[in-house]
C-alpha cells in the first residue's frame, strides 16, 4: 500500500503529513495575531474567503522562533470539521511511503514530541517524522 505524504521542514528537521489531510499549501505573508490565544497560534489568515487559524509549528514543537522567509508555507489541513493552517519553514515535495516504511517513533521522540509524531519513516536516505495533524491542532471539539 502506497500512500502520499506532503514533506515539509521545520528548523532543519523533515516531517511528513498524509496528503489526504492537506487541503492546500500557500505562501505565508503574515497572519493577524489574536490576543489571548496559545503562544503557538500565529494568528489568522484568509484563504479563498475562509478565515483559518495558523499554528506555528516551530512554537508548537518548542523550537526557536524564526522570521518567515519566501520559503515559508502554510500547509492547510482538514481535521474533522476544522480547517487549520500549519506554518512551516518550507514545503515542496510530495513523497510516497509504504506502510512497511513506517515504524513507531523511538521513545525519546514520542515523549519530546508530545504525541505529535505518530511514526518515523525511512524515505530513501532520509529519516522523516510522520505528524499526526489532530494532535498538533489539539483535539478540542468545535463548540466545546
Amino acid at each position: 500500500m502506497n500512500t502520499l505524504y506532503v514533506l515539509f521542514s521545520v528548523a532543519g528537521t523533515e516531517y511528513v503529513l498524509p496528503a489526504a489531510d492537506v487541503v492546500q499549501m500557500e505562501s505565508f505573508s503574515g497572519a493577524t495575531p489574536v490576543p489571548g490565544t496559545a503562544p503557538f497560534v500565529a494568528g489568522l489568515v484568509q484563504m479563498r474567503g475562509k478565515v483559518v487559524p495558523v499554528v506555528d509549528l516551530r512554537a508548537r514543537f518548542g523550537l526557536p522562533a524564526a522570521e518567515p522567509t519566501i520559503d515559508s508555507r502554510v500547509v492547510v489541513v482538514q481535521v474533522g470539521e476544522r480547517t487549520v493552517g500549519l506554518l512551516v519553514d518550507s514545503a515542496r515535495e510530495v513523497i510516497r511511503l509504504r506502510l512497511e516504511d513506517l515504524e513507531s517513533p523511538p521513545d525519546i521522540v514520542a515523549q519530546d514530541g508530545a504525541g505529535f509524531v505518530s511514526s518515523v519513516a525511512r524515505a530513501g536516505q532520509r529519516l522523516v517524522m510522520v505528524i499526526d495533524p489532530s494532535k498538533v491542532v489539539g483535539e478540542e471539539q468545535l463548540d466545546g
Partner: protein
Amino acid sequence: MSAVDLKTFITGYLAEVEEHLRMAERNLLEAERVEAAGGSSARQVRALFRSMHTIKGLSAMVGVEPVVDLAHEMEAALRVADRSGTPLGGAVDLLVRGLRAVEARVRALASGEAVPPAPADLIDALAALGLDRLGAEVGDLGLPEDVRSRLGPGETQELAHGLARGRRAVRVDFVPNPSRAASGLNITAVRERLGRLGDLVKVIPMSVPRSPEAPVGLSFAVLMLTGAADAEIAEAAGMPLDAVSSLVGAQPAAAPAALPPPAEDEEEVELRGEVVRVPVARLDDVLDRLSVLVVSRSRIARAVAELASRGVDVGALSHVVQESTRHLRDLRAAIMRARMVSLAELLERVPLIVRGLSRTVGKEIKLDLDAGRAELDKAVGERLFPAVVHLVRNAVDHAIEPADERERAGKPRAGHIRVACHERGQSQLELQVIDDGRGIDQAALARRAGRDEPRDPEELLALLTEVGLSTRDQATTTSGRGVGMDIVKRVAVDQLGGELMVATERGRGTAFTIRVPLSLTIVDAFCFHSGERTYVVPMSMVDEIVELEPDRVHRPPALAGALVGLLDRRGEAIPVVDLEAWFARRPAGGGGRKAILVRRRGRPLAFTVDRMLGKQEVVVRPLEDPLVRVPGVSGTTDLGDGRPTLVLDFLALGGQVRAAQGGP
C-alpha cells in the same frame, strides 16, 4: 457541542421522537383500518409522512444515523404514496417493522447504549417498496471506486442533487508537472480558475504511475458542478479535453408514468403553502457574496474620495456610489429578514423538554411560555436555545421543590416556570426564565465555593457562573442553583455579547434574565488603529469617543497592569485601559490620545486608540475554531485588504479587565 449541551438536547429529542412515534403508530393503524373499510387513507399517510420527516430531521440534528436512515426510507416511501394516492396495502407491515426498528434505536440511545445500525434487509425492503425515485438513488455517478470512496456522503449527495437539478457534474483531472507550473498552473491556481466556472465539490489528490507527464506521480481529481462546456473547463485547468469527463446520475427505476412529477429538490426546499424552507448555509452563502459587494463598494467610495481630493468633479460618480450604498443596505436588510426565525418557533420544543424532565424527576410542573412576536437571527437563536434549555432544566431539576415540600410551604403542589420574552428597542431581546421554587441558598453556595457570601446579585452571578464550581457537585439539589451556569454565561455574554442577570429570594423563587442582540452578522462599526494594527468595534458597543487631554487624565500612584489612568469626564472617574498593553504587546503608557468609551452594566471604561479610521459597515464572521476563540474577540471581518481584521468586543474585554483588577 459540549457533552452537557448534547445531553440536554437528547432529552428533548427523546421526548419529541417518542411523541412522533406514537402519532405515527396511531396513523398507520388508522390508515390500515380506513383502507380495509374501502376508504382513502390520504390524510393518515400525509400525517405519517410528516412524522417520519420530523423524526428524520431531529435525528440528523442529534446525529443518530441509523434512525435517520430508517426514517429516510420510510419517508421516501410515504412521500410517493402521498403524491400518487396509492393505498399503503401490504406496505403497512413493513412500515410497522420500520417504526419498531426506530423505536428500538431510540431506546438504546435513551439508555446510553450503542445504537445498532439500521438492519440492512429492512432498509432494502423499504427501498424496494420502489417508491422513492428522487434523491435516494444516487448510484455510482459513473465514478471509479478509488474516487468514489474518497467522497463523503454529503459530497456524493451534492453531486447527485446537482445532476438531478440539471447541472453538469464533471470530473477534471489535473496533473501537476514542471511545464504547467512554469506557466503558473498549480493546483491552487487551477482550483481558483475552475471555481469561477462552477462549484467545486471536492479535490482529491490521487497517486498515479510516474511518467514524463506526471513526474511526481500525483494527480488531482477535481469534482465540480458547473454549467460550463468541457472545452472551457479543460482550458481553465490547462489540460487536454480528455481530462474532463461527465458524471452520470442514477437512472430512475421504471417509474410508472402516471406518477405526478416530484417537486424540484424536495430534500432541501419544502413547499408548505407560501413558505419555502432553505438551509441556513445557502443564506450564509448569499451573505458572504454580499459582503464582497460591501467591501468593493467601500473601495469604490475611497477611490472616489481620492479623485475628489485631486480636484476631479465626482458629482455623478458619488451619486451612483450613494445609490448603491442604499441598495446594498436594502438588500442586506432583506437577506437579514430571511435569516430571522420566530422566537415562538425556536422555543416550541421547550414544553416537550419540560414534560420529559418533569417525568424524569417526578415533579409536577406548570409551564407558562410567552414567546411573544419577536424574531431573531438564526445564528443567535441557535446559540441561545441551549442556554434557555439549561435554565429551564435547572429550574425543573433544582429550583422547584418536591410537591410535599411545596405544600408545607403553602405553595401550590405544581411548580410554576415562566419563560417570557420581549423585544427591547429595535435590536435587543430580553428573555426571562422565572420559577417559584426555593430560591438560591447563597450562604450554602458561598460555603461550598469557599468564598464570602455574595453581597449583591452581580457577585452572586459571578459565583454561579464560575467555571467548574457550577458543574462540580451535580448531585446537590438544595442550593437550587443547578448546573452549567458557566455555559449559559458563555453563550449569552461571551458569544452573543449580551447580558445575564439573576434575582432570587429564599422560598419565593429565582429569575434569570438574558439580554442578547437580535442579530449579529452585519454591523455598523468603528475602525481604528492601535499599535500599528487595525481593529473594528461594533458601534452599538461604543458609548462615545473621547479625547484624552493630558490634564484630564489622572494617574494615581497605585495603577497596575494595563490601567493607565482615570479620565475625569463630567465629574465621573473613568478607568483608561491601554489596549495594546492589555494585549501584552507593549508596556503600558504608550497609548494614543483618544479613547473609546464603553459602558458595562452602567459602569464606564475607556480603551486607548492611536487613531480613529472612521465608520464602516462590516460583515462579522464568528471565529469557530477553538484555537482562536478567545473572549474579547467576537470575530473577524475583511476591510478589503484580503486579511482578517479582528472585531473586538469591548464589553467582554471590559469584563476581563475588571476581573483582573479584582472587581466583578
